[in-house]
């Protein structure tokens, strides 16, 4: 079986600083790969090279039989990769419905002209958020006025609402309440069972062990090792994270 996604020898240099190098890994269909690592290890940088935000300094990414590297963020999203970014990347002046559909807005024709279906998108947003356990008091308000967790839920909703083949999640539960965190973990299970590949970044060890099929540990920009959860334990993972630092 060819992997759904394979990253080969990824390197990213910012000015004089090599943030990431020699990162190679695969993700299969229905598999959840966790990228673990200490702060500044390079996790977000790696996933941005996959989703098309950064062009790798070296290395390349293949997905679903095609080459991704060099393609635009647009093309990569169309190819079937959705991403939840650590900084959420929301349009703060728009409501949750428009944020959910950003780039793929629903329209309705009136006299042959397309009009945005704002209410419909808003309703969908309310529903998707509800399924994550989140209620927003005023769904017509811009997301600027939402709480930290509400904002994160909107970013999650945006990624899971589409039939993606691979979903990348950069610390998706960091701002979520306890029940919402559980919802997201359950969601990951459901997506896996539908054959969706997942790359999850998390600092929460219980979550990592619960969700991961494989754990790839980054330390100071390089892969420090790869483990299956059944083969390892908290302590070893933490030691690997620190590994290169010592």
């Amino acid at each position: 079986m060819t992997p759904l996604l394979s990253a080969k020898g990824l390197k990213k240099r910012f000015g004089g600083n090599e943030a990431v190098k020699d990162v190679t890994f695969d993700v299969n269909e229905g598999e959840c790969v966790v990228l673990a690592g200490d702060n500044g290890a390079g996790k977000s940088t790696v996933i941005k090279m996959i989703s098309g935000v950064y062009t790798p300094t070296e290395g390349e990414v293949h997905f679903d039989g095609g080459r991704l590297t060099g393609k635009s963020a647009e093309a990569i999203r169309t190819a079937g990769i959705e991403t939840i970014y650590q900084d959420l990347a929301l349009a703060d002046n728009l409501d949750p419905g428009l944020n959910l559909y950003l780039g793929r807005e629903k329209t309705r024709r009136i006299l042959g002209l397309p009009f945005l279906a704002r209410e419909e998108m808003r309703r969908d947003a309310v529903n998707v958020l509800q399924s994550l356990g989140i209620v927003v008091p005023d769904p017509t308000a811009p997301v600027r006025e939402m709480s930290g967790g509400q904002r994160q839920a909107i970013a999650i909703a945006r990624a899971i609402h589409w039939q993606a083949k691979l979903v990348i999640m950069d610390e998706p539960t960091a701002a979520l309440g306890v029940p919402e965190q559980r919802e997201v973990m359950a969601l990951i299970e459901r997506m896996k069972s539908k054959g969706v590949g997942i790359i999850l970044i998390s600092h929460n060890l219980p979550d990592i062990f619960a969700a991961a099929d494989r754990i790839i540990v980054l330390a100071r920009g390089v892969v420090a090792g790869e483990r299956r959860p059944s083969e390892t334990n908290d302590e070893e993972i933490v030691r690997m994270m620190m590994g290169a630092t010592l």
Partner: protein
Amino acid sequence: MSENNGTSFLKSLLNAWSWLFLILILGFFELYAQMETGNTFLFRVYTLQSIAVAASQILLLALGLTLVIVAGHIDLSIAFTTGFSAVVMALVIRFFGPEGGWLIVILALGVGLLAAIVVGLINGWLVAFINVPSFIGTLGTYGIARGVALIVAGGATVSIRSDEAREIGNGIILGFPIPVLIAAAVAIVFSYLLTHTKFGVHTYALGANRASVERAGVDVKKHLVILFVLSALTAGIGGLIYTGRFSAGAANAGEPILLYAVAAVFIGGASLTGGQGTVVGTVIGAIIIAVIQFGLVFSGLPPYWQFVAVGLVIIVAVVVDQSRDRLTGVSS
């Protein structure tokens, strides 16, 4: 219905404040006129037509600019895109002579708009692909469009004799001057664009957070190019109307109204940092400016005091707008 509860209903109600302010100053001038001259200010077709024509000339620069400013950019070059397209149109008409008829005038309009589009494409290319900040990029094309307009015109103005062109600039249909109808049509199209289409949503998102649209898979470069072309296009239409109104294409046609156009956009609620502003707001802004210019002359205030008064009214227009936020406790 569901979205018309709570804040949103309140909001749409409050957005009426700029209208209210406009009505207020109209009321003020009317009262003044009645008391001072015994004549009505407002209820004369002539006054309404004059104000509307002046507003529409400002508006044609301001409409495209609104989109650009909502997206967090600026377009200074429209000051001379207007003149460039006015001159080009006049040259085409002059080339074919006064007997050209409608066909030639339509050709001239087309060529004039093409000239404007070229400026827009250059702006878009500079900003989107070369990453030149829009202020500087469009200041550059401001100079270029100015120089080229003067060069092709062989001087500052190209006068023409064409009844058809004159009709476009000065004709009246059912009481509505043609320039006003054209500006209204463009305003409706742009209002539709900004509030009801994907393109509009992306424009707002672009102004708030470029990354949000980029990562959502929108082709931001293409979007920017379209924005600057639209801006050049409306400025170009302004130039064509100018040529029609004054029977001459003037390279300087747009320059003196640039500042008013920018002011209309900001009075209409836009912000330097982008992500805010509406076409309706800009329309009200342009009308407010046209009304006070007309009203102050009408009221006979000495010219230097008019500068002071215009300044005050502009500030008060926005303070009124601010106080609505304070009244409803939106700010902290």
